[in-house]
């Protein structure tokens, strides 16, 4: 059962042990779709983080007040509201970024991670704890996005955050920015983690 105490675990859980992407495999669509550059990954991560934080806070605040039968509907409305807000804000900040992220900002609504957190966590703990946990999850999500985005951008474009790394004659690995690259890089990270885990286990035994 969840208690109300806040420990460092509350935060770090989402970053590492239960990383939403690498461990729980949640919200895979945006993870793969918008990570063809680091900047997109960062923007997506922050947008998701914002929605996660605000919806977790709100859900936690009103958790004792909403009837059980309508809770999912209410969560969805809350999430959709914040997503719409983010959508317009990003449009106002930069049209180019908005075009690059495409429909995936709006698709944050369907990100199972956010609804999952609202249902399984935020609706059961007090606001501050929920907020801390959401922050961890959001940071974990963003880190995962950056892991993908940076690899894909470095190989696929020869740049990092837009800065040229290899000079103008660098041959870009176009595949990395294409859909298969997304699958391969995420799969590659998971393989790497599994390999490291197994090696550690072997050393221990």
């Amino acid at each position, binding site marked *: 059962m969840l208690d109300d105490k806040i420990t460092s675990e509350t935060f770090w859980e989402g970053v590492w042990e239960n990383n939403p992407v690498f461990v729980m495999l949640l919200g895979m669509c945006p993870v793969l779709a918008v990570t*063809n550059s680091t900047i997109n990954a960062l923007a997506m991560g922050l947008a998701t983080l914002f929605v996660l934080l605000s919806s977790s806070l709100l859900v936690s605040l009103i958790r004792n*007040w*909403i*009837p*059980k*039968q*309508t809770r999912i*509907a*209410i969560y969805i*409305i*809350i999430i*959709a*509201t914040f997503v*719409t*807000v983010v959508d*317009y*804000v990003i*449009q*106002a900040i*930069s*049209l180019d970024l908005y*075009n690059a992220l495409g429909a995936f900002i709006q698709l944050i609504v369907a990100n199972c991670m956010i609804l999952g957190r609202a249902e399984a966590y935020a609706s059961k703990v007090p606001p501050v704890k929920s907020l801390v946990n959401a922050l961890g999850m959001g940071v974990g999500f963003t880190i995962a996005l950056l892991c993908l985005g940076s690899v894909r951008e470095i190989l*696929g*474009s020869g740049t990092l955050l837009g800065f040229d790394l290899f000079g103008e004659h660098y041959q*870009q690995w*176009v595949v990395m*920015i*294409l859909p298969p690259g997304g699958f391969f890089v995420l799969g590659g990270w998971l393989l790497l983690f599994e390999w490291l885990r197994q090696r550690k286990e072997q050393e221990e035994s």
Partner: protein
Amino acid sequence: MTETTVEKPSSLRMIISLTLVSILSGIAVVSVYLYTKPIIDENKRRAIEAAVLKVIPDAAGYQPFLLEDNTLKPATDSKTKGLLFYAGYDQHKQLVGLAAPANAQGYADKVYIIYGYRFDCECITGVKVIKHAETPGLGDKVITDQSFVANFDALDAKVNVEGSALQNRIITVKHGAKTNPWEIDAISGATITSRAIGKALDIGAGQLLPQVLKFRDQLEAQ
């Protein structure tokens, strides 16, 4: 969750809660919308301005117009149907050319462009890609490749004597095979995106220019 009896809250409470949340959400959305709308519109306007001024090199200002049912009217509301174009004027408020959006299917999705046209040379003077989903490093060379962009320094777009269509349809040819002023020299390795731009121009300009020319006086008078 361990409760054993599912207490049934009154329907009233459910309705109230949902309604309340919906109203609050509506308020939040509307206020953000109202707050950001002017900024977004300004962003869009600036983007269009930058594009139009870039594709009609000598222009200093522009006016949006709409061609609908063989009449020309100033475009005010973006929603009305018809052919949209921007007439470009120089510092002396002289009509120099026009810019218009066009699109065609590329490699991955539609390629959206805005192109510029000069009345004096009867040629296309610039193309800017507004939106595309082509392969980075390949299809997006149509933006970065200087020799490709040079195709549009002066691409022939004369209208035929009857004033019904272009005299020569704009076509894209394989890299290195350009012989006529109305041909576009494709980028090798991105022939398909190159062709999409040619196709967009051919269809867009082919439809718009013959009609616009009839209203040239009207435009000059603005």
